[in-house]
């Protein structure tokens, strides 16, 4: 397996407060990797640094390229796409326009029509609402739109921040099913979640982040049966 993305000894600080300390992790080609941990552990901070919206120290390598001098837009052009916790949709614009904007970073847009059909096949609800403003969608539909918009960019690594946040259980299941199906597209996924059980059931490999540091890591299969983790995050069973 070839390495898609690796983070080596990355720290992120807000002023003097270090929110993420010496974190190292890696995502292999075609793998789904999850970072789980409680609220305030620094998960979102880590992702913001990975996409370049926050300054960080340490090294980040994406497909053999050092990301230090590459800005957010450059990372997106290289196929590193973030679906942020806040979704960051264009609320006043139509669903279709939101999706089309996903292709902005592509050099070759000849496949736009097909990508759009693929997203509509994946999320038929978006097709029904194609002409509606994104701001009028429900929470689940918004998450679908954010995912679909990121997929329009033909990402090589999709970084997802809390995709299940604030969604009804049924929709959460649908979203995770979609994430699992990305494997067949050859898209690698870095998934940050509070919903540890769903995340570990979907992922190949997992990291546990607590107060800014990685305290445990291993194959998702192993982590999901770890008694300590079950007690802390997986709520018994």
């Amino acid at each position, binding site marked *: 397996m070839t390495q898609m993305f690796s983070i080596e000894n990355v720290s992120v600080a807000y002023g003097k407060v270090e929110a993420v300390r010496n974190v190292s992790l890696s995502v292999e080609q075609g793998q789904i990797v999850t970072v789980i941990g409680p609220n305030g552990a620094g998960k979102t901070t880590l992702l913001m640094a990975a996409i370049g919206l926050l300054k960080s120290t340490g090294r980040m390598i994406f497909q053999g390229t050092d990301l230090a001098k590459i800005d957010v*837009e450059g990372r*997106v052009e290289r196929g590193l796409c973030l679906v942020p916790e806040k979704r960051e949709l*264009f609320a006043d614009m139509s669903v279709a*326009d939101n999706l*089309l904007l996903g*292709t902005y970073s592509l050099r070759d847009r000849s496949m736009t029509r097909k990508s759009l059909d693929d997203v509509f096949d994946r999320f038929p609800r978006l097709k029904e609402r194609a002409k509606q403003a994104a701001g009028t969608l429900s929470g689940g539909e918004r998450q679908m739109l954010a995912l679909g*918009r990121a997929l329009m*960019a033909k990402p090589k690594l999709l970084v997802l921040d809390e995709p299940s946040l604030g969604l009804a259980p049924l929709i959460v299941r649908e979203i995770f099913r979609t994430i699992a199906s990305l494997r067949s597209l050859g898209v690698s996924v870095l998934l940050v979640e509070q919903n540890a059980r769903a995340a570990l059931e979907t992922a190949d490999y997992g990291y546990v982040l607590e107060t800014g540091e990685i305290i445990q890591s291993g194959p998702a299969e192993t982590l999901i049966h770890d008694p300590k983790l079950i007690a802390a995050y997986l709520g018994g069973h």
Partner: protein
Amino acid sequence: MTADIAAILAIDGIATGAVYALVAIGTVLIFTVTRVIFIPFGDIAAFTALTLAALDAKQLPGTVGLVVVLACMACLMEVVSLARAGELRAVPKAILGYLVLPLIVVGIVWLTMRFNPPMPVRIVLALLLIMPISPLLDRIVFRPIADASVLLLLTVSVALHFALVGLGLLFFGPEGVRTEPLTSMALEIAGVHVSGQTILILTAALVFSGLLLLFFDFTLLGKALRATAFNRTGARLMGIRPARAGTIAYLLGSLMAGVSGILIAPVNTIFYDSGFLLGLKAFVGAIVGGMTSYPGAALGAFGVGILESFASFQSSTLKDVIVFSLLIPILLWRSLASHHSEEEVEE
């Protein structure tokens, strides 16, 4: 006041309003994409008129010097900041964009002038020459403080206006100009005399705002501009560079201001400092639309034009006072009608 006079004043007001509308739409475009309230916009309009007048008189317009100076400054700043960031590979592209491209425009104007081009070509040349100015000013003045608050950007924008007026005096001289009429045609509509110029102004305003609408609705670049205006972070995550979007907004806005400058040049005498009032009145129009709505800004601009027309009939000395007093009730109404919380304003 009789009905006849009222009709004449209304038509006059609509024509003035259409000119303000073009500038107001440009102001809104630039504000929503870059958060800069671009006060020097009226100056851009005035400079276009002065450029066209110089071209009419077969002189090399002062704009040429202005563009060359600004292009050199912008290019130098870009190269220095790239060198500091250690990104020397991007230098040739920066030189191409900030120096070569504006110089090509200047070259085209300089070459074409020798063939005594007809009026429509001269208008295109004037517009071409004026369009690089605001993107270059953006690079020189606003890019280094792109993350500053709206208030600071506005303060700098006002200062920039005064600097530009000075540059205008330097490059264009103190003489006022009035360009050849674009048309001598006139119409009689329901017994009221309507000049061809009025019709031309209205048509131009409609055509250019229509084109802008089409650009926003049907091109990916137009959508990217709207996306940047709505949600900067979201746009960046799509790979849309706010600086690039800003440059395009400035180019398009300059085109709108330039067109308005060409439309008023045959009816008003334009001096190097005539742009301020034009820009300010368009700004009042844009405020009616809350600085974010294009139809609102256009409507506001027409309102300002009509009010000004009637005000100047009642008391020509007080017309500007009347127009700007309009701001007070509008601002009161807008602040009472809006429900923005503090946090939203901060964004």
